[in-house]
């Protein structure tokens, strides 16, 4: 069934982009509209339109709605969207590069590494001269990159063939170790336990436009690098040696992809903590629907990933309202079973 479905749809790439953008748009409108105060969708369009084109608001629109949309919901939705997009495209790239359908920033331990960097910055008040507010993402990104290099180094030491399970096991061990380290650091600074959970499970609440400014440039740079290397990722997904035979400068391209993946993960984690499985579920789903060609998989993952995280955030803040759940609770509840299914399918394939 699945295969038939794939055949049928993968032929039309325009349809893929159309559906993905509609999905993102719908997610955004829903994300802005639903909450303790409900804002009608037409009003949302009016308010945002007024803001963009600088005309005065239609009198029928409640000014409080305008305030909620512009200062609370819209930044939150955009932030969730950017985080989701970053994690999804990073996940897609890691999966292609490592030929590993189970790889994502979370299972590789990269998110946890980035969290360590962020927690150090925030709780010890570290500031890099000249970097200003970018100290946070820069440290996160640095730690993310160091983590992925270490995970790959250890995985290679354990098993030269870099089997799927070996990489993931190494990543999860790193993740677990770094998570404990984060908890220890936060506890030592005497903050609340809730803060710890906020970092371990992720959240996009009460961040505002500042955080969008922090992640946006890194999202652009990281995505640009990955999109420019889509073909090379295609080649490397047949194995590094094969890619080199085809003519890819593997060492350079691989490093570029790892750096870009770290930039995206690091920036996303810096603004939202470790949100798991987005980078696993979204690329997997996108690949199932539209095929594994990274030239389309990467951009489509951006759209789908952002829409997905906006909806996840919507669920997180409304399901036991007025209390908000960490967004990672929702993504993990969806992601972990998907992880299990992929793993079982792989086993079955190998046996069959």
């Amino acid at each position: 069934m699945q295969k038939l479905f794939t055949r049928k749809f993968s032929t039309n790439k325009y349809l893929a982009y159309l559906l993905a953008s509609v999905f993102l748009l719908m997610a955004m409108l829903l994300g802005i509209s639903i909450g303790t105060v409900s804002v009608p969708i037409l009003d949302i369009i009016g308010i945002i339109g007024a803001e963009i084109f600088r005309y005065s608001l239609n009198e029928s629109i409640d000014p409080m709605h305008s305030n909620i949309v512009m200062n609370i919901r819209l930044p939150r939705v955009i932030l969730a969207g950017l985080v989701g997009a970053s994690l999804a495209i990073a996940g897609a790239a890691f999966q292609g590069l490592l030929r590993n359908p189970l790889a994502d920033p979370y299972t590789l331990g990269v998110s946890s590494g980035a969290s360590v960097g962020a927690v150090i910055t925030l709780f010890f008040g570290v500031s890099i001269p000249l970097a200003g507010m970018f100290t946070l993402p820069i440290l996160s990104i640095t730690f993310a990159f160091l983590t992925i290099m270490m995970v790959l180094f250890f995985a290679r030491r354990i098993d030269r063939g870099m089997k799927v399970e070996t990489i993931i096991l190494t990543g999860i061990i790193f993740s677990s170790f770094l998570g404990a380290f984060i908890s220890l650091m936060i506890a030592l600074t005497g903050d609340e336990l809730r803060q710890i959970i906020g970092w371990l499970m992720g959240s996009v609440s009460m961040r505002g436009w500042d955080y969008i400014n922090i992640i946006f440039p890194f999202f652009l740079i990281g995505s640009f690098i990955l999109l420019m290397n889509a073909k090379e990722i295609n080649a490397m997904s047949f194995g590094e040696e094969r890619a080199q035979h085809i003519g890819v400068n593997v060492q350079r391209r691989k490093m570029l992809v790892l750096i870009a993946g770290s930039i995206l993960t690091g920036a996303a984690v810096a603004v939202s903590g470790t949100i798991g499985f987005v980078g696993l579920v979204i690329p997997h789903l996108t690949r199932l629907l539209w095929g594994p060609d990274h030239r389309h998989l990467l951009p489509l993952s951006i759209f789908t990933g952002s829409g997905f995280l906006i909806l996840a955030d919507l669920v997180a803040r409304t399901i036991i309202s007025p209390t908000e759940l960490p967004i990672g609770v929702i993504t993990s509840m969806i992601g972990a079973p998907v992880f299990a299914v992929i793993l079982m399918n792989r086993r079955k394939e190998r046996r069959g």
Partner: protein
Amino acid sequence: MLKIQQLTGGYTGEAILKNISFEVEKGELFGILGPNGSGKTTLLKMLSGVLPFSNGNILLKDKPLKQYSARELAKIIAVLPQHSSQAFSYTVKETVSLGRYAHQQGWFQTWSEMDEQIVRQVMGQTGVAQFENQDIQLLSGGERQRVFLAQALAQEPEILLLDEPTNHLDLSFQKDLLDRLKGWTNERNLTVISIFHDLNLAGLYCDRLLLMENGKINLDDLPNEVLREERIRAVYKTKIQKQSHPKVPAPQMVLLPEIKDNQTDDVSIDEALLQISGEYLALKSPIPLRTMSSGVVGSGTGWHKVFINRHVDKNYHCDDYRDDMVAFIKENDFEPGETVGMMTAVMIEDVDYQLLRDVDFSVLIVVTAGVGNAIDASRSMEHTFQLSPGTINTWVFVNGHLTEEAFIQSIMTATEAKTKALHELEVRDKVTGSIATGTSTDSISIAATQRGRHLEFAGTITPLGKLIGKGVYDCTIEAIKKSRQRVKI
């Protein structure tokens, strides 16, 4: 095209290849052979630029390999790996298209008309065009291998490197792949360098072979030189025997199994095994015998268990006498595949046979002889050709182990003895009136148990030759006398 000079290196620290030097010319099909661990794959990896080497040099078109970028190299050298992993379900066309990577220029690397055309062409050549939109993960091993071959060809390489390309392929694909490769080396001057596990395939297709042993070159020469029994035995440390291919001039190696069933070691072929009936004379051996014969079926060299001399009428005429003989063999519950069959117009009862013994071997001679067609070979030009069954059929069974030359010498000795018998009885050629040397359709079969004493030669004064000469002479005389008597009556 490709020059390898004093190449040394391997994986971290340890040198797997030691001082390797050879050259490959354009358009050659160059085979690399060697036992496991001899460094074949390491060598191929160095040639493809994937594995760095510590010493020596590789010159590709007179320029060091290290000076080529990955992209430049991919336009000249393509590689077909032994097995390729595919984690994702790309379609066949997507997979093949990746081969164009090195040729696509510029920032956006747009897909040109030419790229499309070449991808179509190579998919056609490798026979994967019909799977174009299928998932490569769902293809069979052979089909997938062809997809990756198409991918390599899409690179439009001048050199194709292959690592045991036929490893997972069944017989027809192996032949198919190598036929194609051989064709491309001839037609478009493609240079193919391939590792082979199968010595026979290598011997069949390669222009030149490089035999590796412990990271060094044992020999770099023509297949016929490299595939020598002693050399292969020493390098691969196993028992093999060389043979020539029955149809093309290529050396072939066969394995010699160590297992031997001791129970049948004392098998002896003697007159007790002969079955004489009106229609045919048969000898059924308990074990397959090594034979060299000119029978109607089972001719040439081979292994056979059943020997049949069929009686046919003097006026027997059949266009498809071979098929007719096979049918006859089946009718009588014998297996044509293990049978040497002959025909004669002579009455089967007139057969003469004799068991001759020496110290530790023995020979059974069985002869049926009719001399209606007796001919003097030295004056056979005076005859017009006519296949009729008045003939002398000679069977020689040897309880011993014969060399190839002993088989041929047996035939010579037996023939000389037969001729002498005709001379003795003054059998004359009816056309020329001179003494005949045989008949126009004589047949002979030499069969040996290939156990017991080694009999290297069978010339007339060797122990074996002496028995054959005497036995055939005696039996032929007796057999001719018997059939003459019958004719007189």
